[in-house]
């Protein structure tokens, strides 16, 4: 079993600098878990505590059943891929991958078999003798992966491994990493600030902000049912529309429109959230319609984004590209109220 458990984990540097606050996550065996959040949210620190590169101030981290708080990094049976790849510049591709095995005093032939196997999986077999400086960014990244693979660790830790690659290569590598995860059948923990990587790769996503875990769930769950305003705004591009509303029973009244709520709520103030694609050029069945004064139109071919004002609120709509609309027009849009969210004005938690 190589599940990973964060049990009330705290990381504090000084009395008033706490970078990870009471983190509780259960990562299942063979799961691809993505830790995502803006920079400085504590995701990398959480990973580095698991790797053994940072001490744990409070709480427990367990790999399987074993508490690893006081286990040295090398004895945790993990492997880590760094953002900078951290290849040893003076060693060849082969030696870079063999290094962790040499440290375990593994027998030559077994070591050779493992390194060659990893090279083949990653397509590095044509150039075992090359030094890292003679490799492209993508190849270096694969050597870093290879160095992790050869150890057959219980858990793979990946710290923003794609952020040094160009956009095209990043897309390819994303797919390769998913394949690799399936082939290796090992737990992957992947840290990124990029919500697209999180959504496309993760079995589950853990979203962090300000050292606090916001929500853990499958990509579908966090997209369709964000736990709070932060998650709703962080996941998805273009971002969700947020409109201040006053609620009475099952109606939410904004500055420029009224929306039928799927559930009745107590009267009060709140924030209504709806994704750009919840707006369509067809009138809504329940009369939740709105007029948008369009400022900017972006045609992407597959979609069309409208940016404009509804009442006194800024709203983005993603509509059918065949809809005829120009800047300055007033567009009649219907709101699909099945996928709207309401957030508490104070706590920012989602009612639904």
């Amino acid at each position, binding site marked *: 079993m190589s599940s990973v458990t964060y049990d009330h984990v705290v990381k504090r540097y000084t009395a008033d600098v706490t970078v990870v606050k009471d983190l509780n996550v259960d990562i299942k065996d063979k799961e691809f878990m993505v830790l995502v959040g803006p920079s400085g949210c504590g995701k990398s620190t959480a990973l580095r505590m698991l*790797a053994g*590169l940072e001490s744990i101030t409070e709480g427990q981290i367990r790999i399987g059943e074993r508490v690893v708080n006081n286990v040295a*990094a090398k004895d945790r049976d993990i*492997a*880590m891929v*760094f953002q900078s790849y*951290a290849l*040893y*510049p003076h060693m060849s591709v082969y030696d870079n991958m063999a*290094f962790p095995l040499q440290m375990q005093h593994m027998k030559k032939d077994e070591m050779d078999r493992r390194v060659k196997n990893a090279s083949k999986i990653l397509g590095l077999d044509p150039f075992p003798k090359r030094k890292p400086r003679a490799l492209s960014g993508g190849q270096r990244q694969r050597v870093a992966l290879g160095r992790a693979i050869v150890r057959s660790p219980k858990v793979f830790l990946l710290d923003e491994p794609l952020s040094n690659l160009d956009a095209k290569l990043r897309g390819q590598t994303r797919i390769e990493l998913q394949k690799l995860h399936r082939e290796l059948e090992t737990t992957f923990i992947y840290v990124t600030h990029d919500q697209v990587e999180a959504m496309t790769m993760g079995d589950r996503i853990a979203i962090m902000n300000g050292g606090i875990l916001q929500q853990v769930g499958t990509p579908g769950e966090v997209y369709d049912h964000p736990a709070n305003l932060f998650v709703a705004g962080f996941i998805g591009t273009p971002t969700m529309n947020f409109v201040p509303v006053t609620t009475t029973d099952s109606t939410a009244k904004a500055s420029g429109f009224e929306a039928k709520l799927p559930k009745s709520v107590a009267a009060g103030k709140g924030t209504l959230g709806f994704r750009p694609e919840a707006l369509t050029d067809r009138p809504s069945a329940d009369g939740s319609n709105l007029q948008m004064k369009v400022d900017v139109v972006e045609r992407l071919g597959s979609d069309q984004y409208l940016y404009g004002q509804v009442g006194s609120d800024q709203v983005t709509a993603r509509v059918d590209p065949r809809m005829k609309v120009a800047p300055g027009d007033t567009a009649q849009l219907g709101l699909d109220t099945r996928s709207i969210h309401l957030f508490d004005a104070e706590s920012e938690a989602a009612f639904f």
Partner: protein
Amino acid sequence: MSVATAAPAHPQASATGRTPRTGRLSEAVSKAGLHVAVIALTLAWITPTLGLLINSFRPGGAFNTSGWWTAFAPPFNFTLDSYRAVLGASDLAPSFFNSFMITIPGVIIPTTIAAFAAYAFAWMKFPGRDWIFLGLVGLLAVPLQLTFIPLLTLAVHLGLTSGNTLPFGLNAGFIAIWLAHTGYGLPFAVYLLANFFRVLPQDLFESAEIDGAGTLTVFFRIILPLSVPALASLVIFQFLWVWNDLLVALIYVGGAPEVAPMTVNLANLTTSLGQGSNLLTAAAFFSMIIPLIVFLSLQRYFVRGILAGSVKG
């Protein structure tokens, strides 16, 4: 960024008001200026050396009466007498050997200690680390001469004088001078290496830690191979300093011929041979051979070593 610095990066940027052609011209002019300056400096340094070289081939005493450049006018009067006299001096061979006996350990000992110390200063956490490092660097400012009396007293108390012989027939004076050069060389050596080690990327160490490498393995398998340029420059510096040193050798071993290096021996040439100062020219060139070989064989590392740390390699 100013327009002037931006222009070469974007040759097509005629918006800056400069056509590429005038840009290239001004670049050529400034390059020529640089070349002139470098050549002038080189000449200024090399001319006296050249004079010394020519004088070493002129008959004894000639340089007391005329400048070295007159040698290029007839009568061409070159001779190898000075070299013959120097090489024929009875104690040249032992002093040449002594120079090696002093220089090689005088380089290896401080470099080795400094490499370990620099690793600790750069990458290990221990209380007072920064203050100790600061104190060590502060030692660079201590004048050598201040240390002579206390250190020499210590050496005499410990029996490390040229009069004593240790096991394997090793003259104790060598130990004194090795330790002296180690002490004098260490502050700079530690400073240079620690600065170099410090800019090695932290990820490498963390990666090695996860891979299971211990402190010593990291040192020998990762830090040392990556620090060849810095080590080479340090070796050159220390080698030149120890090989050319006269003062320290004179103080710690005096003129004892069984320990005295070349420098001491050469300094004695003038006095022991009376009017032999012409011999000095030949002797100086003879003693330059070894440092030149060391420098030329390591200099490609030396240049990289100087750049080390300032440019991410």
